């Protein structure tokens, strides 16, 4: 009797939310940093949002190993299959659009309209590159009319493992815009995501993990560019760097990359901008060609 009265009189306490632990995304799994470290992530107003894993040099190396392991399988998928998987990413992202828009409002201080615009553009960007997977070889490759009795044909192939420094100020649309072209073409990626706004990337990892993107194709590191960047830039098993979000360290990383002739995409216009710098709905092939090799095959013609 007394028990019932207490329940009726006291207001029902709000349900305690289950908070998310933001971890790395490595080889298809979500581990903490092997270093056991994390760092606080705040909103643009300074409110604490969460702790993110502070990736170490070892995590970066593990990510490269996972990306290398995944490269053979991913690059030998048919282009059609890769396109379907990228399209699936768009489908799953669409289903979670409110989560991402709310996250962008909270983390980046965007208006709801700007957040919605960024999320919509990110979804559409996956669709855009899903469509590129089985066209890029036709656009960039073809028959070469050599002056002799030879069949001669050039086609693009993925270069391998690409280390991507994602834009610092554009944590969802910017990240999508640099990541999607890398994997659309059959490369695998190790991405150092925005240090100050890393949560969208970890949310995106959950989308990738449930969209049939094989483990290891995308590996996401949250942490500090000055700490893990040099190890990725000089890593002998990294084939290419996208330095978009490398900031002041871009030249240093390019110099480190020279030791193993690692391909380099330098920071372009918009590298320092916010999500609105990435709204162009037709970015073309410019972010795919730096990570492609051209292979030319000859064969004699005769009876």
């Amino acid at each position: 009797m007394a028990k019932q009265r207490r329940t009726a009189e006291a207001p029902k306490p709000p349900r305690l939310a289950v908070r998310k632990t933001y971890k790395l995304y490595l080889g298809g799994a979500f581990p903490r940093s092997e270093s056991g470290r994390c760092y606080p992530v705040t909103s643009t107003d300074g409110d604490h949002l969460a702790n993110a894993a502070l990736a170490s040099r070892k995590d970066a190396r593990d990510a490269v190993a996972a990306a290398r392991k995944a490269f053979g399988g991913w690059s030998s998928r048919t282009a059609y299959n890769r396109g379907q998987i990228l399209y699936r990413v768009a489908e799953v992202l669409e289903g979670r659009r409110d989560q991402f828009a709310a996250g962008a409002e909270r983390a980046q201080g965007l208006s709801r309209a700007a957040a919605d615009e960024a999320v919509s553009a990110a979804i559409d960007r996956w669709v855009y590159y899903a469509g590129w997977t089985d066209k890029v070889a036709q656009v960039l490759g073809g028959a070469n009319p050599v002056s002799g009795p030879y069949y001669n044909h050039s086609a693009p192939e993925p270069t391998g493992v690409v280390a991507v420094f994602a834009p610092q100020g554009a944590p969802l649309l910017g990240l999508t815009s640099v990541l999607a072209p890398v994997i659309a073409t059959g490369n695998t990626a190790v991405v150092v995501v925005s240090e100050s706004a890393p949560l969208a990337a970890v949310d995106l990892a959950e989308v990738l993990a449930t969209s049939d993107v094989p483990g290891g194709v995308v590996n996401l590191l949250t942490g500090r560019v000055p700490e893990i960047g040099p190890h990725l830039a000089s890593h002998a098993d990294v084939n290419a760097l996208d330095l978009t979000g490398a900031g002041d360290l871009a030249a240093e990383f390019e110099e480190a990359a020279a030791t193993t002739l690692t391909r380099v995409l330098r920071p372009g216009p918009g590298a320092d901008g916010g999500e609105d710098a990435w709204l162009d709905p037709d970015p073309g092939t410019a972010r795919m060609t730096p990570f492609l090799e051209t292979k030319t095959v000859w064969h004699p013609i005769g009876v």
Partner: protein
Amino acid sequence: MIFDYAPAPESRSVVRLRDTYDLFIDGEFTPAEGAGTLPTVNPADETELARFAVAGEADVDRAVAAARRAHDTVWSRMSGAERGKYLFRIARIIQERSRELAVLESMDNGKPIKETRDVDLPLVAAHFFYYAGWADKLAHAGLGRDPRPLGVAAQIIPWNFPLLMLAWKIAPALATGNTVVLKPAETTPLSALVFAEICQEADLPPGVVNIVTGAGETGRTLVEHPGTDKVAFTGSTEVGRQIARSVAGTGKRVTLELGGKGANIVYDDAAVDQAVEGIVSGIFFNQGHVCCAGSRLLVQESIADELLPKLKERIGKLRLGDPLDKNTDIGAINSAAQLERIRELTDTVEEEGVQRWSPSCELPSAGYWFAPTVLTGVSQAHRVAREEIFGPVLSVLTFRTPEEAVAKANNSPYGLSAGVWTEKGSRMLWTAERLRAGVIWSNTFNKFDPTSPFGGYKESGYGREGGRHGLEAYLG
């Protein structure tokens, strides 16, 4: 009765050598300010052919300034159609003077006249002819609606195909509206200087092409010069790394065509006689001074005993000697330094358990020579299987399964070229798909064409030369 070949030397009379060659800057031959010179010798007999100017900083400055002026005031403003007509004109003059250029190239480089006459010079003319036609069609190259030239290109070329490498550099650069400062190799500067005369003969506007001669220091000065927008280099991977480092952070564009250790895979169903010819041209073409040489023969174990004796028999018939003799197959090693490098890499192989074989072959007493050499019993760990020798030395390895062949072929930091010999189409395509190399020759080897993109994966460099792809290196 055995008939030997009578000497059949090509006449040198078509070549008019000068005692000293100046730099070519702003349309004129001009002495270097430091006035230092270096000799260039005929590697077949070690006689001095001529001396050439060594460009210092001030000279490189002048050349870059001339190129900038020409770019800004003339060349980038000219219509593509007019630029193209200059290149067509150059292609025609090269065809007219091809005998002279072939003889000169053989004298300065040491390669057989058969190759300069039938391979180098026809490809040089074809390259200019091909890119001439692109000059007014750049909007159709898939590189944007209005692609723009980068500006001034610093270009450094090697000694193995002096004039051909010049063509690979200059033709696409000029077609796209860039101007150039080119440095030929210090052991083979002469054909580039005759090319400068051809530019004059074609009335090419002054400053569009500038040729600065010299050694490594001149090259470094040119690469590091702040007044250029682009660096294009063909040469060793080691120098390529240095260039990539020095260009970092400058915003200059760069393309690099570097070393190789090409695998030539022969499956058990290959047409053996054809494969033997391909193996021979793969490694002994141009004395093996070829970045894309098939220097690692991977032969399927089950046919190794049949193939190797045939290969040796064929190699025994190669004729080594006077590069100007029309019957010569193997000419001189380009320089004393390169000969030393080949010896250094091969001198100790027998101590490492490798079997070494060369045909009985008399080497001329003067000049730089190295007999064609086959190394068997080579494993992946041997230096001769890993490092680029850049000479007439073939390392032979065996494999059992296609998977093993591909794994061995790809087990190299290089990725420039590879060969596949099989009569089965699906196996050829399966193999070609898995080889991490920029050029795959199947049932052929060492074929080149201006329409066919050339360039490497991995530490063989980046960028492509030739074809539509070759335009990308010079457009922004």
